[in-house]
């Protein structure tokens, strides 16, 4: 990345030192290779000169955004874009993974822990010049809670019962009890001026973030420009303009970077990392494996995965280490839990709870009533364009084939895949890599996959299927006492592994590459990527 000057004393800010140390520690505990650790350290290495203002940062992403609505779009490329346009009440630190206040000055539980009081700074203005007040935050939260708005974030803030404005800079969020998922959920909530209303998909995005939206030309680019009046000087943007280009073809994206046509390739296949690391004109930034987890959804509504033995067989069927080595360029970590060891909620007992054992797969199939695969019928549903899902499915297919039954792999496009999982429930097994392994477990376990009352639970998991499971999740979500929380989530992880509604196989890193003059880029584990710290040393 930045080359050290021959003269002068290297300088490093306290913030950057903490970032560097935190990320390196996170990477080391995540089991990263020395090369990956070197990338990490380089990614947050202190630039010699003070950050420069100006220039245009051109970024290529794999797909185009599909909406301008801040609360409705779910694509990572949109998260990357809108994180820079809007302010959120909180943010997840990309180096320590801790959730911290961003727009909010503080969060305090009061009223016998049934109210969360949020303090806001004064003097914040939206890009259209309007003043940001507690009324705008209330409007945003109330709108997301309204089912007519159609926001996927509704479930994230479902515990909110009421939002009360105390004054221009304070508001009170009423709940029935402490809800630990709320503050991490606020990292996803983009604050919008109430004057815009809720029909935001047809309007130019107006936020209060460090960058203003300029234009979206579908399939060509999204352009942002620096907000010169950003309220928080410490988090203000450096580059004048950001252009985000959707470039579908991976090799084109890499060639564009090598040619200098783009400055940064955001999120690309891990298999390209060794090749790009070897190129001295490119800097690679790898996020430690902590947030996205590979797992397989098993449909428990029907045979064969209504039987715990068949689900456990799926847990023993993948050569996780082989997959990571051969298909993730070693940039992953074998895990049976949503969390990795650096997370406070990680249960060490989950390590090696399931590993690769084809003999056990055969025995469990027999125990389930399918000796040598007789009478067994299931298949893997795979979305096209996600090679890693197919690779895992193929490895699983080979293990089951060796045990006597060869499941089919059915490849469909992503829209069909989502519809079959979510609407028709017409599937047996489907690999995915859901996020949120690095955030607070209260948010992790509020997701459809893990939390049975949520209708979007693809697995067909119901609260009664795992005795005590939902109670432990709620216990962890509704107390501030760390010991109690840890005990609750320890139990939750053990119950999950015993009943195994969906085997978790491993976590994956994410990789980004940029030209050496791109300074201050620290990749975010959950794609809530800020480019405010990025500047161009050229």
């Amino acid at each position: 990345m930045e080359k050290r000057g021959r003269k002068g004393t290297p300088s490093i800010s306290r913030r950057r030192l903490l970032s560097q140390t935190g990320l390196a520690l996170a990477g080391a505990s995540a089991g990263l290779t020395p090369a990956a650790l070197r990338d990490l350290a380089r990614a947050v290495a202190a630039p010699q000169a003070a950050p420069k203002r100006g220039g245009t940062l051109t970024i290529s992403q794999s797909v185009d955004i599909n909406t301008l609505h801040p609360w409705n779009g779910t694509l990572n490329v949109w998260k990357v874009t809108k994180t820079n346009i809007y302010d959120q009440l909180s943010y997840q630190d990309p180096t320590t993974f801790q959730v911290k206040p961003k727009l909010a000055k503080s969060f305090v539980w009061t009223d016998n822990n049934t109210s969360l009081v949020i303090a806001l700074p004064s003097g914040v203005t939206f890009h259209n010049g309007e003043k940001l007040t507690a009324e705008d935050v209330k409007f945003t939260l109330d709108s997301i809670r309204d089912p007519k708005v159609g926001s996927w974030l509704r479930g994230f803030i479902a515990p909110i019962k009421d939002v009360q404005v105390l004054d221009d800079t304070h508001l009170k969020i009423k709940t029935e009890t402490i809800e630990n998922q709320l503050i991490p959920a606020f990292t996803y909530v983009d604050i919008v001026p109430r004057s815009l209303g809720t029909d935001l998909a047809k309007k130019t995005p107006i936020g209060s973030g460090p960058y203003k939206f300029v234009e979206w030309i579908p399939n060509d680019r999204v352009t942002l420009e620096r907000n010169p009046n950003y309220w928080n000087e410490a988090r203000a943007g450096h580059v004048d303009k950001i252009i985000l280009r959707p470039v579908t073809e991976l090799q084109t994206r890499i060639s564009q970077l090598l040619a200098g046509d783009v400055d940064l390739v955001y999120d690309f296949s891990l298999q390209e990392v060794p090749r790009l690391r070897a190129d001295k004109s490119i800097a690679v930034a790898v996020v430690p494996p902590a947030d996205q987890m590979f797992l397989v959804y098993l449909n428990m509504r029907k045979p064969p995965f209504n039987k715990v033995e068949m689900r456990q067989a799926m847990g023993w069927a993948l050569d996780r280490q082989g997959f990571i080595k051969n298909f993730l360029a070693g940039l992953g970590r074998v895990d049976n839990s949503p969390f990795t060891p650096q997370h406070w909620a990680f249960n060490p007992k989950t390590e090696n709870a399931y590993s690769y054992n084809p003999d056990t797969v055969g025995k469990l199939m027999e125990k389930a009533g399918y000796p040598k695969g007789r009478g067994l019928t299931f298949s893997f549903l795979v979305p096209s364009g996600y090679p890693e899902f197919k690779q895992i499915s193929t490895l699983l297919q080979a293990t089951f084939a060796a045990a006597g039954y060869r499941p089919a792999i059915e490849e469909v496009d992503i829209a069909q895949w989502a519809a079959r999982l979510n609407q028709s429930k017409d599937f047996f097994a489907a690999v995915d890599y859901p996020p949120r392994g690095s955030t607070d477990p209260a948010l992790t376990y509020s997701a459809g996959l893990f939390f049975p009352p949520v209708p979007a639970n693809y697995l067909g998991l119901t609260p009664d299927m795992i005795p005590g499971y939902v109670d432990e999740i709620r216990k962890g979500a509704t107390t501030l006492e760390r010991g109690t929380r840890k005990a609750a989530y320890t139990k939750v992880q053990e119950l999950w592994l015993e009943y195994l509604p969906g085997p978790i196989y491993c976590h994956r890193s994410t990789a980004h590459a940029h030209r050496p003059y791109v300074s201050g880029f620290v990749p975010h584990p959950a794609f809530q990527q800020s480019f405010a710290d990025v500047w161009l040393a050229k």
Partner: protein
Amino acid sequence: MARYLIWRAVSVVPTLLGITVLVFLVTYFIPGDPALVLAGAEAPPEVVASLRHQWGLDQPIYVRYGVWMANIARGNLGESYFSHQTVLRLVGRAFPVTFELALLALVVAVAIAVPTGIISAVRPSSWFDLGATAVGFIGLSIPGFWLGIMLIYLFGAELRWLPAGGFTPLSSGLPANMRSMILPAIALGTFASTQLMRYLRAGMLDVLNADYIRTARAKGLAAAMVLMRHAMRNALIPFMTVLGVQMGYLLGGTVITESVFALPGIGRLVLNAILNRDYQVAVGIILLIAAAFVLVNLVVDLLYPVLDPRVRLGQATSWR
């Protein structure tokens, strides 16, 4: 001539109507839901239902089709569920890119195919002919995306002579625009050139063996005159038909080239619309592509009498 034109214009209406029905039915039966694409698989059912209601997707197919056709009659092809831009605006922005690409690709194809096809026909079974045929087969066999990636890597990333993908509009200047279009035009045009070359070669061989060519030679006309004035003109008639069809294919078949070179053309627009189940955009574009295809063929038909005086549109041809 006028009657013929009217008849041809009217005859495209049932074709286009049939296409609208077919496309609408296909999009209806493809599994997948734009509301789910936008809201994400984790979205609660009431959220997905709310989006479906906003977009009118909870209406029966015949109601949706009727509304769409009524809008078309008013010149409104609808708007994207996602970007909320009108189909005409999206197409208006993307079509010039695709048209420019197709046109340049056709120029590349013709520039390769015409001399190669003629020389191959004039010297059949020569080393040139055999070489051209072999190269043609290779050209047909090479996947377009592979050629595109190789061109990008060589001329973009390694030599850095040309941009490695991306589009520069004409408004930024012709040289910059041309630089961004050269590689995609070569990638797309190379494939088309092999087909055109083989077609022209076959046509020329037929013509060169015809009696009137022998007569022309017997009259003592120069070889170049025989070739250019007598053989070429007749061989170009079927070639022009193929050229017209090829232009139609190029206009409608740029998806891969546009994806590889990151060009914001019609191909990518329609591909993303289909993947996102953005029905309005997908159906609107397919209708426009079909209309363009029909129009290009009509233009080619009208060009016939220019090339062949024996052809009279709208009249019975008399052969004496």
